[in-house]
């Protein structure tokens, strides 16, 4: 079920009051919320509910087994098996075709005929997200950071529908303790929840969809039909589109969880205001960044093995991060660009004689500009279907200046300005809006929210495009 649909609105109108009514009795609430989440997931394809259930049972069984063992070797073996099982499922559903076609094509390139048949595997929605959450659960139990919880609570943690299909990637330590005691029905942060849902819907339905249909799809579909200005603005538009799409989805997810009484971690913090690529990764998809840091970068050795090993670990982490986003070499290239930028930044700061200069407004503006260009350059590979297509975009960017622009309209520029400008708003502004909203009488709050829904529905296109991150 997509969040901005009538079907989901009806589903949530049923789940919200029932959840609060059952909340005081955990033994009733947990089966209810797991069942509701399974219904939510089955709306996409009921067969894959079994996969989600299997993931719950598998990770819970291994977490308990690891926790009960004291022998370090056995614990390590169990952990390895648990992680391998998770990765095998992810590998089969997400990477089987990629592996088979890449192998086949490598042999074909070498002139060796080894016919491998691709299998047309359906990618279950959200598999990357719940697999990563399952891995973090067993690893945290192994590290002793977290004691295994009961099966009902773990099932509620892993399948909780607001985060199920596209995150945020919530760590066990963040959500399971909230499942230990009933949420207090007297104190719900409704104003923040409604603010997040309304802004999320606006960013997804209006900004992201408008940019996709007005410029991005055309520029990336046939770049040689458009001027360099169209292509340049199209690349910036894609940067805003993907941000608005994922930021919008995450806002809605966090807002829905808040209405149900649960807190999710923040996933974005004005990423296009970053002053370096390292800073960008502290602000973009933050729950994935810290997952990669804690479960890939640090286990690889982090920055503990000297400069060269640190560079290697950074690069490997970003390559894997790229591959996580999609089973394609263009995603690996996207990760490689970010990895190279991170290594370059670290080398610059590590070099002998480097002295950090005091930051000025101009220097920060310049760093933001450069960082944004690097990030946008990487987005070309993320969006393009192939390296040839990415190359076409880059060539066109430099070879068609002076040709008339067909796609750069006032609406496109306004949507880009809103997408980027919103990241430079003073932090107190949304807080003040939420505080003001929270003190309005209940009928006025309902009327205000309905006006926001009017704007979103009237300005959005007919139908709703899937969220970009569903495919990851």
């Amino acid at each position, binding site marked *: 079920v997509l969040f901005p649909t009538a079907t989901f609105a009806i589903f949530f109108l049923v789940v919200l009051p029932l959840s609060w009514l059952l909340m005081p009795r955990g033994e009733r609430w947990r089966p209810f919320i797991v069942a509701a989440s399974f219904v939510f997931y089955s709306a996409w394809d009921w067969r894959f509910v079994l996969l989600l259930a299997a993931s719950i049972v598998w990770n819970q069984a291994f977490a308990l087994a690891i926790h009960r063992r004291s022998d370090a070797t056995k614990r390590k073996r169990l952990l390895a098996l648990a992680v391998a099982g998770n990765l095998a499922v992810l590998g089969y559903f997400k990477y089987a075709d990629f592996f088979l076609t890449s192998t086949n094509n490598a042999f074909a390139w070498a002139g060796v005929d080894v016919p491998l048949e691709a299998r047309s595997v359906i990618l279950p929605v959200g598999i990357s997200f719940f697999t990563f959450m399952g891995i973090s659960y067993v690893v945290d139990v192994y590290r002793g950071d977290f004691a295994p919880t009961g099966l009902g609570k773990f099932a509620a943690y892993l399948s909780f529908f607001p985060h199920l299909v596209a995150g945020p990637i919530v760590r066990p330590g963040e959500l399971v303790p909230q499942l230990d005691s009933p949420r207090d029905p007297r104190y719900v942060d409704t104003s923040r929840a409604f603010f997040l849902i309304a802004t999320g819907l606006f960013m997804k339905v209006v900004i992201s969809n408008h940019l996709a249909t007005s410029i991005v799809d055309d520029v990336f579909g046939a770049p040689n039909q458009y001027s360099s200005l169209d292509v340049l603005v199209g690349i910036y538009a894609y940067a805003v589109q993907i941000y608005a799409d994922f930021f919008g989805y995450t806002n809605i997810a966090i807002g829905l969880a808040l209405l149900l009484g649960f807190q999710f971690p923040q996933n974005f913090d004005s990423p296009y205001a970053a002053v370096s690529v390292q800073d960008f990764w502290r602000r973009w998809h933050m729950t994935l960044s810290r997952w990669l840091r804690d479960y890939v970068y640090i286990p690889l050795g982090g920055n503990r093995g000297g400069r060269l090993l640190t560079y290697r670990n950074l690069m490997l982490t970003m390559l894997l991060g790229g591959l996580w986003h999609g089973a394609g070499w263009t995603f690996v290239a996207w990760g490689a660009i970010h990895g190279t930028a991170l290594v370059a930044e670290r080398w610059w700061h590590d070099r002998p004689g480097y002295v950090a200069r005091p930051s000025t407004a101009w220097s920060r503006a310049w760093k933001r500009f450069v960082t944004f260009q690097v990030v946008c350059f990487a987005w070309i590979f993320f969006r393009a279907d192939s390296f040839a297509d990415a190359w076409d975009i880059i060539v066109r960017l430099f070879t068609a200046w002076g040709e008339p622009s067909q796609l750069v309209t006032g609406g496109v520029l306004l949507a880009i300005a809103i997408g980027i400008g919103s990241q430079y708003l003073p932090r107190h502004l949304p807080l003040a809006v939420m505080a003001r909203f929270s003190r309005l009488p209940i009928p006025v709050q309902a009327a205000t929210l309905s006006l926001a829904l009017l704007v979103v*529905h009237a300005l959005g296109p007919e139908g709703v495009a899937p969220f970009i991150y569903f495919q990851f």
Partner: protein
Amino acid sequence: MADETHDKRTRKPRGRVGEGGRKLHSAGSAVVVTTFALGLAVLLNAPGVHKSATIQQEGWKRDLALALTGPLKETSEALYLDQPRRGLKALAGRADDDDIDTGVAVPETPAETPVTPPPKRKITPDRKLRIWVAGDSLVIVPGQSLLRAIGGSPVMEPVSEVDGRIASGLERPDVFNWFKEIPKRMRKDKPGVVVLMFGANDDHGFMTGLPPGREIEGGFGSESWEAEYRRRVGGLMDTVTRGGAYLVWVGLPITNDPAQTARFDAINSILVTEADKRRGRVSYLDTYFFFAGPDGGYAEYVANARGALVKMRADDGVHFERAAGDLIARQVLKRLHQRFDLSSWRRDAAPDG
């Protein structure tokens, strides 16, 4: 949570303030605000909500949605609650978004097919061949491939970006009315070539915009369905060719669902016969075997000339990947080279000697 029942609370809760001075509210008020906000939003957006209900697939969900949204729309209009939405739509330049137009206006008498094929028309950089690509969502990828392919051509140009409308077709003008759009674009853009692809959303028995007194008896593939679908296909072909354009109609591909493929075959057979009646002005491009595997069945990956596996079809088993689009675009260009003289201008332009 099992044994953590709340104490009975008889006192009125004290006000609590969250981050930034936000007042926290009760779960009850969350339910009330959510319910009333959604209810009022439905009234404010009633014209759009009613249209969404109307253009759904036939079935009980549509019937139920229409039964609910019809009175809501009337109430909204009676109370002038629809006016803010209409104002916003007008402001965005989309004032007719919520209109439902099911009129199917097509020429009823086919134009006569010339006995001898028309001579190849010479195309020059001064008189470029203007191409318009339109259809349902299936046309988007091949259309973009075609636009890329003619990108460097001095004698061909697109009249606009690819006009692919998701979920549209010839059965349901209420979703999108191509019978109104195509004549409009023919008059406005005057394309020399039109590339159309329809049918992926037409493999059902439910049609809107039927002439008075006509009904579909027996559903998809029945005699009455075929007669009406044939009238619409032939009518669009005549609309385009009478507008002065050469029409390439791209047929539906094999899919990963054999039942759907059989329905697509039924639509393709209508396209073939109608195109055949208009030979020389309409060309049907059969795509079926482009994407079949060695066993003749559906294949998501197809080996290219070098033996490398290339992904041709999207994960849904219906839509195209870029490589498939390129393949179709090459075939369309081949048809255009057969129908038009696209190269002699080079000889004319070359300096003597």
